[in-house]
């Protein structure tokens, strides 16, 4: 019964979304206030209805209602409660409902918090958002309905893929979706602005918080996914350049570009048409990601719902929305006139360079991702494009971004002076080179990657610190530091986080240690500066799995600094194994140990790794996200509400 209510709510949401699409749009073009206001109500009602549907589906998973097809295929009564809940979005149908829920959430937030927007703009934004909702609700109901029943309810389910039975599943997809779907807001704003034919500083200010929020969520989502892969896959890789990862990385890069160009629109009223184009493309890449994941057109380790019919549906959504928006863009972009004037050496120019580099990086990832497809269709060559290509083609652009970042961040608006910005940075450059040289001296005879990465990271981190410090003036500097606008802090934190991630990636790639052996019980072996001891192996049983658990002591000198328990699990219902690495987490390094099969010659296969600076990779990403949140809380963005209302108030007096 609850299931049917959920099903009905989802259908009702489709009807409401259709109303939300049509009525406010007509109202805005005719100037009918009542019709425009329908958008607000519809957005909130749509969110409530999708919420009911999502809750009903969750209820079915929690109560293990195996008469539901998705529950039967993806759940099991013995599964721990948390994985019953997160299992709701561990499958195609359920994750799509989550996607739609978040889409409706953004629409409802725009209706509730968008009080400072002009009525026509708000109505149009909500209408476009409603249209996206219609498309995805149709997609769900027609091709991927989660509420379908089985004629005969089985006694128990087939269980969730064991690799997904991890806290990572609880958080990674929701954050990623918040990011992907958040970009739908910027898309809606861009399309609404094109329809209105007006993009000004105020538009830049309204669209920036949404972009920033989407980017922050995307950052967290990608970092969580990377961390999850790191500890779950059993060899400590953190990024694979897999098509599905690339699908999340491309919108991230474009959102970062958009974030920066929207600043130029807001502060200087120029780069408008480029910013609009970016907003359209960023969401386009979100949809492309959805297509890649759910169509199976590219071979990926992230197999999801590989169904051509679903693929075609998403492709149709992609063409209608992005194609439509681009046509609108080509018709209207000419009317967007740049206002601000700026010199060749200026913050504006630096931000243009930032956008060039980020856009080209996106291109590299895009071309590499679809090349196997293009090559096969157009040239009849079946080939692969893997990590070696991306490492070689992508890294140079990111190195340039890192080199330019501190310089651009300190240039003045309108007309900057290179000498004035460069001189203070000379000390930072010297520091970076010195630390790089130190790293080179310590490592003795390995690739240049480590030292160069560390020098680059230092340059970026120290550059952000100097940027912040240089804004404090000459007296009472510490006091002023605390009173700087939060946007300045956010920028410094995010840029610094980038530097930390760069160091982490370079160090883990250049200086990792690895040992693979058949370890006997009691055997000791050295890895890096540590000594490991295999103390024993025990068999055990979890709620829905069997486990083989090793006990391994980690020594430094004579002292035992940690004991880890790597596991090899087998899930009988799903018939699949997983590894649970034993990780001793540290600031400077992780020690990462995986247990394998029992060997014929006695002993167990044990892989052990020292992963230097591993946590810097995700720590940096988290810092970037915190920087985004801090910037989001800036007074300027909150005050925008008052600023927009002020002229109205004056007119009334």
């Amino acid at each position, binding site marked *: 019964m609850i299931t049917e209510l959920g099903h009905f709510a989802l259908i009702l949401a489709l009807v409401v979304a259709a109303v939300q699409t049509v009525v406010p749009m007509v109202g805005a073009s005719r100037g009918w206030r009542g019709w425009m206001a329908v958008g607000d109500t519809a957005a909130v009602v749509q969110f409530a209805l999708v919420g009911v549907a999502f809750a009903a589906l969750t209820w079915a998973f929690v109560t293990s209602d195996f008469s539901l097809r998705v529950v039967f295929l993806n759940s099991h009564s013995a599964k721990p409660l948390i994985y019953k809940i997160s299992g709701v979005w561990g499958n195609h149908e359920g994750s799509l409902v989550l996607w739609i829920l978040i889409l409706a959430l953004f629409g409802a937030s725009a209706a509730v918090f968008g009080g400072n927007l002009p009525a026509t703009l708000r109505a149009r934004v909500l209408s476009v958002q409603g249209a996206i909702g219609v498309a995805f609700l149709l997609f769900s109901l027609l091709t991927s309905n989660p509420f379908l029943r089985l004629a005969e309810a089985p006694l128990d389910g087939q269980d969730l893929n064991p*690799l997904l039975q991890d806290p990572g599943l609880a958080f990674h997809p929701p954050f990623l979706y918040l990011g992907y779907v958040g970009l739908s807001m910027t898309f809606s704003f861009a399309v609404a602005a094109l329809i209105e034919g007006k993009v000004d500083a105020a538009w830049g200010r309204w669209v920036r918080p949404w972009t920033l929020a989407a980017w922050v969520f995307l950052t967290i989502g990608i970092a969580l996914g990377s961390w999850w892969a790191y500890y779950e896959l059993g060899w400590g890789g953190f990024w694979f350049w897999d098509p599905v990862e690339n699908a999340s990385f491309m919108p991230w890069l474009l959102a970062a570009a958009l974030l920066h160009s929207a600043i130029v629109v807001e502060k200087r009223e*120029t780069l408008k048409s480029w910013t609009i184009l970016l907003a359209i493309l960023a969401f386009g890449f979100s949809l492309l990601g959805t297509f890649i994941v759910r169509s199976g057109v590219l071979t990926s*380790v992230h197999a999801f719902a590989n169904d051509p019919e679903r693929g075609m549906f998403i492709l149709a959504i992609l063409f209608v929305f992005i194609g439509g928006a681009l046509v609108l863009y080509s018709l209207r972009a000419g009317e967007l006139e740049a206002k601000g004037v700026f010199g060749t050496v200026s913050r504006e120019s630096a931000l*243009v360079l930032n956008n060039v580099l980020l856009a080209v990086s996106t291109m590299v990832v895009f071309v590499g991702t679809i090349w196997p497809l293009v090559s096969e269709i157009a040239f009849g060559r079946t080939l*692969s494009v893997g990590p070696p290509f991306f490492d070689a083609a992508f890294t140079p652009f990111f190195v340039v971004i890192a080199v330019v970042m501190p310089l651009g961040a300190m240039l003045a608006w309108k007309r900057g002076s290179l000498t004035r910005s460069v001189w203070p940075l000379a000390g930072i450059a010297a520091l970076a080179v010195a630390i790089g040289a130190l790293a080179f001296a310590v490592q003795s005879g390995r690739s240049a990657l480590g030292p160069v990465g560390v020098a680059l990271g230092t340059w970026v981190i120290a550059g952000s610190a100097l940027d912040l410090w240089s804004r404090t003036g000459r007296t009472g500097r510490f006091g002023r530091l605390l009173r700087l606008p939060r946007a300045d802090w956010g920028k410094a934190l995010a840029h610094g986080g980038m530097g930390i991630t760069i160091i982490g990636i370079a160090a883990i790639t250049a200086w990792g240690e690895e040992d693979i052996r058949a370890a006997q019980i009691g055997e000791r072996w050295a890895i890096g500066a540590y000594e490991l001891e295999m103390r024993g192996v025990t068999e055990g049983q979890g709620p829905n799995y069997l486990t083989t658990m090793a006990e391994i002591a980690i020594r430094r000198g004579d002292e035992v600094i940690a004991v880890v328990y790597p596991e090899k699990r087998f899930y009988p219902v799903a018939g699949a*194994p997983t590894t649970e690495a034993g990780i001793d987490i540290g600031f400077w390094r992780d020690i990462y140990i995986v247990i394998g*099969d029992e060997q014929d010659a006695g002993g167990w296969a044990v892989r052990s790794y020292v992963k230097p600076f591993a946590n810097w990779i995700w720590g940096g990403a988290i810092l970037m996200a915190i920087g985004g949140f801090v910037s989001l809380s800036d007074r300027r963005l909150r005050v925008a509400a008052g600023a927009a209302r002020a002229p109205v108030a004056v007119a009334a007096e």
Partner: protein
Amino acid sequence: MRALAIVLALWAGSLQAVEPGEILDDPALETRAREISASLRCPVCRNESIDMSGSALAADLRVLVRERLVAGDSDAEVVAFMVERYGEFILLEPDGRGANLLLWLAAPGAFILALGVGVATIRRRPPQPDALSDEERARLDEIVGR
């Protein structure tokens, strides 16, 4: 990375990569073997190198790579041998021959193009705003208190 890892789905059975028994005694040869196998795709897996894949075929290929190295092949010869057997599909880093030139030149080409557009944008001077009208001039004088 959408559903995360989903990542992980289909990973099943591929949990163990290089086994202790496969490792060569000569560390220099072993290092070369690891580098080569990290650049070769496992033909039956989804987008994994034979170095990280746990499938039986990947294990066979890892052993094969090592056999060729022990037999005295150079790295290039080993790779050529594998390509001959499995086609260029096995290369994770596509070569630059023929149409693949497009793949490799796309990034530098796009960069030069984008840089050109960027410079043009920066150099372009938007029309200067019109001079103030007498009325505006008077209002401005009033504001600045002249």
